[in-house]
């Protein structure tokens, strides 16, 4: 008997939609009105959706394309004409964008159905999805824990079967870290590969749209549907995107870097174990382990928190209560309009980062902070380039810990920032990274590893992920049995 539709891969769904066996509406309802939807209240992955709009979109979707009939949740910082786009911030409450982000447009062109907007840390600033003005998303594996962030909503939605594919954004790990916490695949492509047009900017030189899925092949398919030059994004790259159709071709002959100095201490034992199992799986599949030393991630975190916040302080200046978004009612002149609207509209973490970035750029501090960080960034880029001279990709943790508890790090910015210690470097280097789920701990929490590649190295990352999927442990849907038992139709 085939799997229930809500557990199916995007590939299977689109094949059946194209063949006329099922409709896009059925595919969507399987997730949305099926067993997965029972969790939505507890998990709170979705912040804007609408049954009418979903159905209208599903009915209008063409039954062709790489993602024909595939329901997709997109993070709330990607502009969509049919749902609000608020970045989960009070300052954009009720805002409707008059245009679709390029990636959203391409999803629709590929036959996908946008089902709503995923929860996130406000303006993508956070690593736990606790800083959302709509309230936090919970980890579907353990509701007392965070799903990671900032793309926690899309990651959680894919993990518990609401949708097979979701889009997030990754500025310092915001796709890869929640993917790891939620036990799904999460790809951050090469900078410039997926258009940023319509992605509300956080750190423009670091931001990249990313892809969540429960199967390596679905990541590849979605990447193929979205990648490519966009004339509306001057940082998008005109060279053809790498061909990822050989994601199932195995890893024979590929060398993977093994920078064990990075997890010598401070990394959860379950993750070190996951790294060993993944390395073994890759070796069994014909890959070669290349032990190496690598620059500790703390430098990247330090450079990142200056560059990203500097860019953010400027990117978020446009939220001023003049043309859209929240306007304070007690403004008497333009000055107070700005100050009151921004202070009422931005949450504490966003305010903190705007202040830090403003400081790093301000007169007298620019050289010591912003410029120094950009020089460090050059150094980090060189480290990455050097590493890929001796291997095809690196194997390393996606995050130093398993999902932490809700509230554990909210008041300790630095501790929160350090949960991105393994992911941030790739954003500084502009290179791709992929989180790969590697089984579940005895306590029922997902574990994961991360693969980092050189520029345009997505193909090798996906092949390696697939090899681990086949030769090692794969994640299963969380609480699958409980849910199926509680689903009325199954009794």
């Amino acid at each position: 008997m085939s799997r229930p539709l809500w557990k199916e891969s995007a590939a299977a769904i689109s094949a059946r939609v194209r063949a006329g066996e099922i409709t896009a509406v059925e595919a969507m309802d399987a997730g949305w009105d099926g067993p997965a939807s029972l969790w939505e209240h507890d998990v709170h992955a979705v912040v804007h959706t609408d049954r009418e709009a979903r159905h209208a979109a599903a009915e209008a979707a063409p039954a062709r394309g790489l993602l024909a009939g595939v329901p997709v949740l997109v993070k709330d910082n990607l502009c969509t004409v049919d749902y609000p786009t608020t970045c989960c911030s009070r300052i954009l409450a009720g805002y409707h964008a008059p245009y679709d982000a390029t990636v959203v447009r391409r999803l629709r062109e590929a036959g996908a159905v946008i089902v709503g907007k995923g929860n996130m840390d406000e303006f993508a600033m956070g690593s736990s999805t606790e800083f959302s003005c709509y309230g936090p998303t919970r980890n579907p594996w353990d509701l007392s824990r965070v799903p990671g962030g900032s793309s926690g909503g899309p990651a959680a939605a894919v993990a518990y079967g609401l949708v097979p594919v979701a889009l997030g954004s990754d500025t310092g790990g915001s796709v890869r870290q929640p993917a790891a916490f939620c036990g799904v695949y999460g790809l951050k492509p090469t900078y410039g590969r997926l258009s940023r047009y319509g992605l509300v900017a956080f750190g423009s030189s670091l931001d990249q749209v990313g892809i969540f899925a429960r199967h390596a092949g679905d990541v590849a398919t979605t990447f193929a549907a979205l990648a490519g030059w966009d004339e509306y994004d001057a940082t998008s790259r005109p060279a053809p995107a790498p061909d990822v159709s050989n994601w199932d071709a195995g890893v024979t002959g590929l060398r993977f870097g093994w920078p064990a100095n990075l997890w010598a201490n401070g990394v959860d034992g379950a993750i070190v174990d996951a790294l060993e199992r993944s390395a073994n799986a890759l070796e069994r599949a014909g890959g070669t382990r290349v032990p190496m030393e690598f620059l500790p991630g703390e430098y990247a975190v330090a450079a990142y928190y200056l560059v990203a916040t500097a860019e953010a302080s400027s990117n978020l200046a446009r939220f001023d209560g003049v043309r859209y978004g929240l306007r304070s009612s007690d403004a008497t002149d333009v000055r107070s309009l700005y100050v009151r609207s921004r202070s009422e509209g931005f949450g504490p973490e966003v305010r903190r980062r705007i202040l830090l970035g403003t400081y790093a750029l301000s007169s007298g501090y620019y050289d010591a902070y912003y410029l120094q960080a950009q020089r460090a960034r050059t150094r980090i880029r060189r480290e990455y380039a050097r590493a890929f001279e001796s291997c095809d990709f690196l194997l390393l943790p996606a995050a130093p810990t398993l999902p932490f508890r809700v509230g554990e790090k909210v008041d300790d910015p630095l501790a929160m920032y350090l949960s991105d210690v393994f992911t941030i470097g790739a954003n500084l280097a502009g290179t791709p990274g992929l989180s790969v789920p590697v089984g579940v701990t005895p306590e029922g929490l997902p574990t994961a590893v991360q693969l980092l590649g050189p520029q345009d190295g997505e193909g090798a990352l996906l092949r390696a992920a697939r090899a681990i999927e086949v030769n090692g442990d794969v994640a299963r849907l969380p609480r699958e049995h409980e849910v199926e038992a509680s689903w009325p139709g199954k009794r």
Partner: protein
Amino acid sequence: MRIDRDEVRRIAELARLEIADDDAAAVAGQLSGVLDFVATLQQLDLDGCEPSTFAPADAPPREDVPGVRGLDPFAATAAAPESDEGYFVVPPVVENVNP
């Protein structure tokens, strides 16, 4: 403490944010903590490392030809908190000239 309360107020002014007096010390402490951490960069050998520039300049330029993504005055002001006859409306500007 790398940043004191006065510094917080100066930055907040530049960023058009209001920091309550009660919060200024706490914010100063948090920012200083991050800056102390950021100081690890000083241990990194940056000889010969120019500041990174960003996007590769290999995309074809946009030709000077009008496109189709324009908005009409109604759509342009649709999300405005206050608008009138296609204009955005704001409280009076005190500092009177654009620098």
